[in-house]
């Protein structure tokens, strides 16, 4: 049933929270349900008059009436009030459109997806529909209404392709009534949760993207295959698949997709993904968007953002503060400005309760955002018109206009003012009082007159205070109480009230009769009877200890509401329903300017902008290790123009405006290239589940914020080959990057670097060190590895042939695009280079023989620990080797690894590089190169090539980088001394003629960061806000993925003494 139809479906039954008005709804639209008992025809016509009406952001009527009929708004303004309407005078109150929570989640039973023609992977359930789940969550709805929220998007939670969401109302009526729009959006996320099982594909974020990407291709292919079959039923009938059918239809209809983006980089990833498939995409953000504001604005996507601003991190002691990153401190300060900054940048934005521990803190968050610069109209739009429009329900929701649902919020002031209370939330014409005015307030002083009592009795005085529904008080002798205020003189007999009860109009309590009405406990029961003047009297009985019953009449003493009571009342109102406490103070405390400028990435050594690229730079008076034909030049210069080396030699002059760097005899070398790195990726490094995961791409998860980038710049590294791990024989696709610190992920990518892929051999891929439960995945031996490689390459060949056949003939079902085979086919076609993790000589030789058979030249052998034993075969094949300088003995297969390997292979004519595979080692690859001199006597210049020109050759980027020669990129390192000496330090690192690391600038940034840090710590201490405690510590999901090849890190000793 479509959402639009549903709107006309009948309404049945009263709702919770409606007690005070006690008026059931009128069934206005026809229902197919049989009537049980009598028909109900309570009129549902309301006129809310004399209110200030905010029709839509920026459109205000100062004194207007809103007329509601059967759940819809029929008029807004000064028009006539229908005589049949119930009139509520809302003078002094403000009416807004009911707020929309743009994102909530519910767990959906996946049984429906498992039945039928399910997708093979349980992470793929796009066919699931949230409307099949129970959507009326009474407790949650009550909280949402307390925040003025009358409608919300409900999305299915979990999985990669999750299913469809719906916009639903926040009343508690039956399922057929609450849905405003079903199939609002298809939901996805481009990641999986950390700490999954090692064999549950996908086990990594990059695997998740690969699966999502394949599924979108499959959905498209599915449609084409079925169309082809329907046109010619002699073709084989394609398999049915519910997931692909649902997804394909939604894409084809340009349906809305909502993708989770758990940090700012995920927004860019989601955008990039959506572009590949021309999706109509809306982002569900994280609150971190301000960190990459311009880039996110440039995507043109709208974003749903949370208002779950963080507690301050624990800086209560200097020791605890050590563990707090500068970026956490900055985020604490800036997070409340995220909505304001997005708005200022012109990003369309909707707000959500998502992320809040308690949705009742929503308005507090929104108000904080307003205090921190979000214009009130923008805030209002972000909770009304924008989400209505983004979610395609603007005909029904979002403003106070005729024909829309009567979703309204009534407040006693400006919605974004901290002191304003939400009084009522109307959900499709049903009024829910958020803070009901107490119907009966007995607080005050009552004089009790005892009737028909024989003995003379004292005048009793009943004093009631506290909350209207939680009264306390005392019974006293009337006269005495009158005489002495606060009982200063003689203490009149008095008894505290116990067991005070109030329900409906009935009041009861007990008190000790001593000195008042005989001994023992007296029980009092009374009914509050309304009087003409709106007041009440109490008519009741006292039951004495001896069983005597005395009838009494109680009258309120005028003007007796004590000052203390009023204070108590004010406090009650300050704490709204739910949890949000002392909000006024909190908002005020953080409403100050920020302490620092924007830096990229946020946190330590972030840059406010990319380093400048001067028109020309002249490095003068240096010892230049060209690593080209000209060797090492003393007292030489290097001239750089527009990021390229244009001259190397003596006595060079630059054009006017040249930036001159006088090096006073220091050394200049090409930038260091790390041929094996796992830095700058938060995709998990290994998709180690299946034996072949060629479809996985490191390039989907470049983490431009990884501090390792900066640390390695400080070690002279300018480019790196970021590789998939070694968990499987054929792993994912690599990504060559330049270390452009501060840039965006896409800006890190080395333009022009040919594509590659990780292969691996030996212990890791046969799961030798994975533990006893991993003994069944094929292969478990080196024999099996050899067979698997051969089989995969055969499959790739056949795949290519199948496509070629179809492209030539067009006959048969269209072939399915298989991203795994695509990558393998590129290898066979010579368009993708293999970088193979390798240890033992037998496996090295076996792979070479297999590749020879297929006519494939290997890109490089990685680690290649026993390459020195078969260097002749490597040289013959044209295989290059990228090795560790001196690692050994961490696994059995590296017991024969020797530091002389580099020299032996080099001497046999193999192009050798030394790599790091390690965040620390990568910081001093020059020193590793020096080990080639020590172990085996390689000449210093040749040794330096092991970490510059040779890795460039192995990555096929040596035409661009790797030496200081004319025409190459100006990727240069300035060293304080001889580059192979440990005691030399990197002083500058240049990429593309831009200085990305400078030892003096580094000192300045340290001082800057220390200042900001101190200022923020002080700000937190001054704020008085409660800090996050140690046991509340958690991290962004993206930080919970390994940043190394965990299957390779036997060399990381495993029993380090270092306390984390």
């Amino acid at each position, binding site marked *: 049933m479509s959402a639009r139809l549903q709107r006309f479906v009948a309404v049945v039954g009263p709702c919770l929270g409606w007690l005070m008005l006690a008026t059931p709804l009128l069934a206005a639209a026809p229902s197919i349900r049989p009537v049980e008992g009598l028909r109900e025809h309570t009129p549902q016509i309301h006129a809310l008059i004399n209110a200030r009406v905010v029709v839509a952001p920026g459109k205000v009527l100062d004194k207007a009436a809103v007329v509601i009929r059967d759940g819809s708004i029929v008029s807004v303004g000064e028009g006539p009030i229908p005589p049949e309407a119930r009139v509520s005078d809302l003078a002094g109150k403000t009416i807004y459109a009911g707020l929309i929570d743009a994102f909530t989640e519910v767990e959906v039973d996946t049984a429906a997806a498992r039945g039928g023609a399910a997708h093979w992977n349980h992470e793929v359930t796009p066919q699931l529909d949230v409307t099949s789940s129970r959507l009326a969550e009474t407790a949650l709805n009550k909280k949402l209404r307390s925040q003025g929220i009358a409608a919300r998007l409900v999305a299915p939670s979990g999985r990669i392709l999750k299913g469809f969401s719906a916009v639903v109302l926040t009343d508690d009526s039956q399922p057929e009534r609450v849905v405003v729009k079903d199939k609002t959006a298809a939901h996805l996320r481009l990641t999986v949760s*950390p*700490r999954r099982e090692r064999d549950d594909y996908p086990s990594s974020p990059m695997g998740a993207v690969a699966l999502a990407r394949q599924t979108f291709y499959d959905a498209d292919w599915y449609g084409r295959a079925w169309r082809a079959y329907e046109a010619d039923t002699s073709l084989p009938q394609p398999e049915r698949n519910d997931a692909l059918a649902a997804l394909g239809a939604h894409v084809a209809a340009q349906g809305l997709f909502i993708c989770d983006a758990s940090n700012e980089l995920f927004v860019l990833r989601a955008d990039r993904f959506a572009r590949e498939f021309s999706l109509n995409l809306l982002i569900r953000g994280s609150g971190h968007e301000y960190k990459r504001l311009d880039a996110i604005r440039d995507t043109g996507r709208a974003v749903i953002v949370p208002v779950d601003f963080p507690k301050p991190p624990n800086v209560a002691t200097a*020791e*605890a503060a*050590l*563990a707090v*990153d*500068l*970026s956490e401190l900055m985020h604490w300060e800036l997070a409340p400005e995220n909505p304001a900054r997005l708005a200022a940048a012109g990003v369309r934005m909707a707000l959500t309760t998502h992320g809040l521990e308690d949705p009742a803190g929503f308005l507090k968050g929104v108000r904080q955002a307003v205090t921190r610069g979000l214009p009130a109209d923008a805030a209002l739009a972000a909770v009304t018109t924008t989400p209505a429009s983004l979610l395609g329900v603007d005909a029904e929701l979002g403003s106070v206009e005729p024909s829309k649902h009567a979703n309204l919020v009534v407040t006693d002031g400006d919605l974004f003012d901290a002191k304003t209370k939400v009084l009522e939330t109307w959900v499709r014409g049903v009024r829910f009082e958020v803070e009901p005015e107490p119907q009966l307030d007995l607080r005050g002083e009552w004089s009790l007159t005892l009737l028909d009592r024989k003995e003379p009795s004292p005048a009793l005085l009943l004093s009631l205070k506290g909350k209207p529904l939680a009264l306390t008080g005392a019974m006293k002798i009337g006269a005495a109480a009158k005489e002495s205020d606060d009982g200063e003189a003689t203490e009149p007999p008095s008894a505290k009230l116990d067991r005070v009860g109030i329900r409906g109009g009935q009041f009861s309590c007990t008190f000790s009769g001593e000195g008042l009405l005989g001994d023992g406990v007296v029980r009092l029961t009374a009914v509050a009877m309304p009087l003409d003047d709106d007041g009440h009297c109490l008519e009741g009985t006292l039951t004495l200890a001896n069983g005597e019953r005395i009838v009494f009449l109680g009258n309120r003493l005028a003007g007796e509401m004590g000052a203390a009571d009023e204070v108590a009342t004010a406090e009650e109102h300050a704490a709204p329903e739910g949890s949000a406490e002392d909000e006024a103070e909190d908002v005020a405390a953080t409403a100050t300017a920020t302490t620092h400028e924007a830096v990229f990435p946020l*946190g*330590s050594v972030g840059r406010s902008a990319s380093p400048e690229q001067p028109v020309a730079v002249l490095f003068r008076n240096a010892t230049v290790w060209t690593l080209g034909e000209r060797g090492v030049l003393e007292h030489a210069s290097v001239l750089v123009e527009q990021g390229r080396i244009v001259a190397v030699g003596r006595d060079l002059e630059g054009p006017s405006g040249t930036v001159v760097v006088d090096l006073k005899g220091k050394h200049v070398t090409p930038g260091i290239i790390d041929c094996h790195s796992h830095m700058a990726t938060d995709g998990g490094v290994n998709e180690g589940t299946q034996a072949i995961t060629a479809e996985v791409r490191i390039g989907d998860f470049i983490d431009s914020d990884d*501090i390792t980038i900066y640390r390695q710049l*400080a070690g002279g590294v300018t480019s790196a080959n970021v590789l998939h791990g070694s968990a499987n024989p054929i792993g994912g696709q690599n990504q060559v990057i330049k270390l452009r610190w501060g840039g965006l992920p896409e800006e890190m990518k080395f333009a022009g670097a040919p594509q590659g892929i990780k292969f691996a051999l030996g212990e890791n891929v046969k799961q030798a*060190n994975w533990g006893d439960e991993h003994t069944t995945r094929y292969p478990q031996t080196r024999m099996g590895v050899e067979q698997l490689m051969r089989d995969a390459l055969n499959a790739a060949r056949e795949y290519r042939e199948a496509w070629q056949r179809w492209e030539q003939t067009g006959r048969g079902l269209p072939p399915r695009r298989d991203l795994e085979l695509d990558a393998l086919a590129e290898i066979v076609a010579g368009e993708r280079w293999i970088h193979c993790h390798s240890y033992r000589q037998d496996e090295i030789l076996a792979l070479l023989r297999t590749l020879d058979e297929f006519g494939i030249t290997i890109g490089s052998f990685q680690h290649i620990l026993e390459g*020195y034993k078969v260097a*002749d075969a490597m040289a013959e094949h044209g295989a290059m080797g990228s090795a560790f300088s*001196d*690692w*050994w*003995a*961490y696994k*059995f297969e590296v*017991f024969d690894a*020797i*530091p002389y390997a580099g020299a*032996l292979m080099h001497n*046999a004519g193999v192009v050798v590089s030394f790599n790091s595979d390690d*965040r*620390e080692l990568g910081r*001093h690859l020059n*020193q590793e190169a*020096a*080990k080639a*001199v*020590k*172990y*085996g006597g390689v000449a210093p210049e040749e040794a330096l090539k092991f970490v510059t020109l040779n890795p460039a050759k192995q990555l096929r980027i040596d035409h661009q980088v790797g030496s200081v020669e004319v025409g190459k990129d100006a990727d240069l390192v300035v060293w304080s001394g001889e580059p*192979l*000496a*440990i*005691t030399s*330090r990197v002083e500058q690192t240049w990429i593309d003629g831009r200085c990305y690391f400078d030892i003096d600038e*580094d000192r300045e940034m*340290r001082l800057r*960061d220390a200042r900001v840090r101190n200022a923020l710590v002080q700000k937190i201490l001054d704020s008085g806000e409660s800090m996050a405690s*140690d*046991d509340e*510590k958690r*991290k962004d999901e993206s*930080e919970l993925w390994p*940043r190394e090849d965990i299957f390779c890190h*036997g*060399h990381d*000793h495993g*029993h*380090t*003494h*270092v*306390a*984390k």
Partner: protein
Amino acid sequence: MVCSVVQRWSVAVMVAISLQGSAARGNPEIPGDAPQRPVAIVGATVHTVADGVHENATLIMRNGKVAAIGPNLKVPKKAVRIDAAGKHVYPGLFAAHSDIGLVEINAVRATLDFRETGSINPNVKSWVSVNPDSEMIPVARSNGVLLALTAPNGGLVAGQSAVMQLDGWTYEDLTLAPAVAMHLAWPAMAPVIDWDTEASAKDQLAARDRALENLREAFEDARAYAKARAADPATPKDARWEAMQPLLTGEMPLVIDADDLQQIQAAVAFAVEQKVSAIIHGGYDAPLCADLLKKHHIPVIVSEVYRLPLRRWEPYDTAYTLPARLHEAGVTFCISGGGRFGASMLRNLPYHAAMAVAFGLPADVALRSITLAPAEILGVANRVGSLEKGKDATLLITDGDPLETATQVEAAFVQGRPVDLNDRHKRLWKKYEEKYRRLEVQRSAKE
């Protein structure tokens, strides 16, 4: 190669050396034989560490000890003379913390002997499990590392360590000083949230508190045991509490693994309260509480210099400058280099010191931090650590500064015994050099 500097050895010694040389072609290295006569190293630059640098000097070894050092020393007639002009003599490098001999291949469980089960193991002794034929040992000494503390680790109280000299037939030959220290891994004080920590922050804090309680109980139980044994010698023996007595009497120091400031502070407070003499190992944050460490005379073994900053916000060179900062603050320290990679990488010890020099540590202090400083901190400076008359003749002859990579160790002596500087790596190197030599011969023959 080994004897390129050895020029005037007696025939007997020359034979011994050449035998070892032939071992390069297949046999494992054979422990050095004690020379019957004094040995004089003549004409070298002698870096005594304790007493400056003597250029063109002579060093005489007798009965395994340094007998004399100085310029123009008279070489005894019967002495074996080693002409070392242009060469340098250094005390054997000393790795102040390692697991050498206890680990062969990290990924092969059967070869691991550094961690006993349970958390309170004061009675286990590392040296009885040191494999003298470990391939790690010749590799380490090839680059000048002749002394190492071999320590157990893991759990809470991991056991006792010994100073080993890296040449000999048995673990007893190797053990220079047994029972040098007790080892304690201080629990992490703050929770760790990362990809390989499964426990929640809350559970980690609870585990920390339990560990600290266990530790305190162990010390209390050990004291109660001493009291009971004193009062009644028939009290049955308890190996654990027995082993802890030297700790409680202050005879044996407690090496405490601690990096984080809160760990170090807590560890110091514990040591002071328990009246034990403590040494901090790791020591990443030690400069932040330098005064505390100095006040209580607690030295620091820097576990490694090649190390990432522990925290994202810290300067990139935080670990590189650690030794320099400790030096400036006046904290007693040494550098072990045995941290992250353990035994297989012990040969890179001098480079840890060299990296500290690049980042501000004076070169002489750096050399001291891997020779005499560890000997002092571990209480064996009366025997090793510097070249002084009466100390062990455990030393090396190099062609340059051992802190520079290209420098080669050309000869080494452990207590005066010449060390075979061959190792597994050189054997394999020579083996495959031979392969390519033969291929070249065949190729030439074809042409």
